[in-house]
């Protein structure tokens, strides 16, 4: 035990420093017992809290694999017997019965269409705006940036009605335009803020060298800057993807025809069609799992950047 502990301590400089600090204290047996008791308690608490996190997850997946009769069996069976894999296709078959054109593939295409177009527009617009704020000196820059920050406090519901009226006057209600085309202009203020913070940490040397070599400003931005801020862009991409994939208020207000529904609206539509007496929880949990799966996958793939990007606003801001 002791050897392993020392190994772990030597692993990082920070820990090494702590070690010298510790050795200044007297290493009595009492200290050692207290120390390992503390470690034990730390892990015990961490495991206890992680149950709070994980049990609902497990319950969602477990429910999604149960047959209808198993839903109400007490005590709860965590591993269903038999495992009803067929719930997943069956949930969408049931939905298809009430919405004839809304197949699983159609829902997926609708959701991806909205999510990818909105994400592309937002990433392009936001990175340019952030670059403008981070790198160039122009009159009113700081005032404009403070205005940008203060728009973060503005609740979406305040601007919602006039924005709805704008799209209505353009006769674009019941199209995807309010959800994807407007994004070119309405990019998230927090995303601009986050990218600007990141850009400020990057030295100007690379850009200056490129200008000397005769590159123009767009080339410098695309060829030099974008690769340098790739970690932040990836983190943002995941967050923006997640935001649009989950966006409920937008489709709720702008889309009327069922055929155009993305996943979240399909879920809502399906839920409304069920009677209160038979909520079909196994199908709803299956659909929820399907909706969550791509996000979880993306999160696991990009989580290193993701957490870095997420915390930049809170810690350095």
């Amino acid at each position, binding site marked *: 035990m002791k050897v392993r502990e020392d190994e772990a301590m030597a692993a990082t400089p920070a820990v090494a420093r702590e070690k010298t600090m510790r050795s200044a204290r007297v290493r009595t047996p009492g200290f050692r017992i207290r120390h390992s008791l503390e470690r034990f308690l730390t892990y015990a608490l961490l495991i206890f*809290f992680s149950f709070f996190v994980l049990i609902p997850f497990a319950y969602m997946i477990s429910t999604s694999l149960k047959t209808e009769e198993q839903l109400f069996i007490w005590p709860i069976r965590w591993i269903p017997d038999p495992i009803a894999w067929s719930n997943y296709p069956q949930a969408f078959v049931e939905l298809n019965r009430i919405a004839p*054109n809304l197949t699983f593939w159609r829902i997926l295409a609708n959701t991806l269409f909205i999510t990818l177009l909105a994400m592309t527009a937002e990433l392009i617009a936001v990175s340019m705006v952030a670059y403008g704020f981070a790198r160039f*000196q122009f009159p009113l820059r700081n005032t404009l940036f403070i205005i940008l920050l203060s728009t973060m406090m503005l609740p979406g519901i305040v601007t*919602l009605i006039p924005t709805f009226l704008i799209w209505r006057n353009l006769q674009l209600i019941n199209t995807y335009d309010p959800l994807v085309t407007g994004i070119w202009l309405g990019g998230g203020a927090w995303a601009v803020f986050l990218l600007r913070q990141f850009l400020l940490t990057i030295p100007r040397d690379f850009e200056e060298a490129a200008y000397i070599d005769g590159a123009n400003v767009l080339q410098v931005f695309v060829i030099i800057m974008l690769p340098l801020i790739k970690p932040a862009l990836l983190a943002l991409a995941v967050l923006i993807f997640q935001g649009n994939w989950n966006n*409920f208020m937008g489709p709720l207000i702008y889309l009327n025809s069922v055929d155009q529904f993305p996943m979240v609206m399909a879920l809502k539509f399906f839920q409304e069609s069920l009677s209160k007496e038979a909520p079909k929880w196994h199908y709803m949990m299956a659909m929820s*799992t399907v*909706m969550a799966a791509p996000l979880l996958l993306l999160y696991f793939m990009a989580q290193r950047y993701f957490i870095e990007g997420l915390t930049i606003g809170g810690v350095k801001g």
Partner: protein
Amino acid sequence: MEAAIQSYWPTLVRWSLVGGTLGAMMYLLNTGLQRVGVKRDVARGYAFVLPWIIGFLVFSLYPFVYSFYLSFTEYNIFQPPRWIGLDNYVRMFTSDRNFWPSLRLTLLYAFFNVPLGMIGALGVALLLNRNVRAIGFWRTLYYLPAVLPAAAVALLWRWMFSPSSGLINFFLQPFYALFNMEPLAWFTDPNLVLPAYVIMGMWGVFGANAVILLAGLKNIPRELYEAAQIDGAGAWAQFRSVTIPMLSPTLFYTLVTGIIGALQIFTQAFFITTPQRAGQFLNVLIYQEAFAFRHMGYASALAWFLLMVILVLTLLVIRSSALWVYYESERG
């Protein structure tokens, strides 16, 4: 499939056109300004922030001003707005029976959800900061609920809180038996809707906040703790006079974003049916007034009221921050 393509195609064309036009405008602004003798840096700066400036004018400033105007009118979108002065606001405070329960529910939700979530988050962050092994694993695990769609979270918790067959009442069964009481009805009992929402909200947010707070904790220089130890400070004294002040900017950030977020809860309410008597969240009330009853004027007044609530609370937090938030750069 053809129907699908028909609904994508026009949008795709307009999307590309708007993007292209915007790019062209940026290019023209940059070269145009430079041609009339504006400094290169200035021209480039304005060109790059142009998308935001247009977006701000069209999708923030104009709607902001217009909704303020609408809040003094009666408007059903089919006839032009009719000026009615303060009537909407008077109606909100005096005769709308949904308003007060809705305000109460929204404020109480924020009041309980934000501090409880922060205490939980701080606890987990402090645990994770104790040189725990496999820190990446724990961080990933605790952040997990924040990745789930709000709609899925709401459905999941509605099912977990199901009075007759949900997981929560299953766990509480021995407790019910011990005190010889009826199982709690959670989302279907008007008095328990709030606690049920608070528990659900905490599950969604505390892990994400813990990850942010952990990053803040990692930023605290170790020398400060060493100095405190040399001065003979115990664990509690170190926590109070090193950890809390050094972490206060991060706590401040999570507090402000937490309040703003909690007051605007929306999606979850659409996937959970609660008894009428429990009230609805303000955002939901506004949505219904606007899009179910076409009371655009009254809904705008409600939205402006929500904005005022958010502003007042945020300003209170910012004002109080002078007392408890410690910024290193302000020291000297």
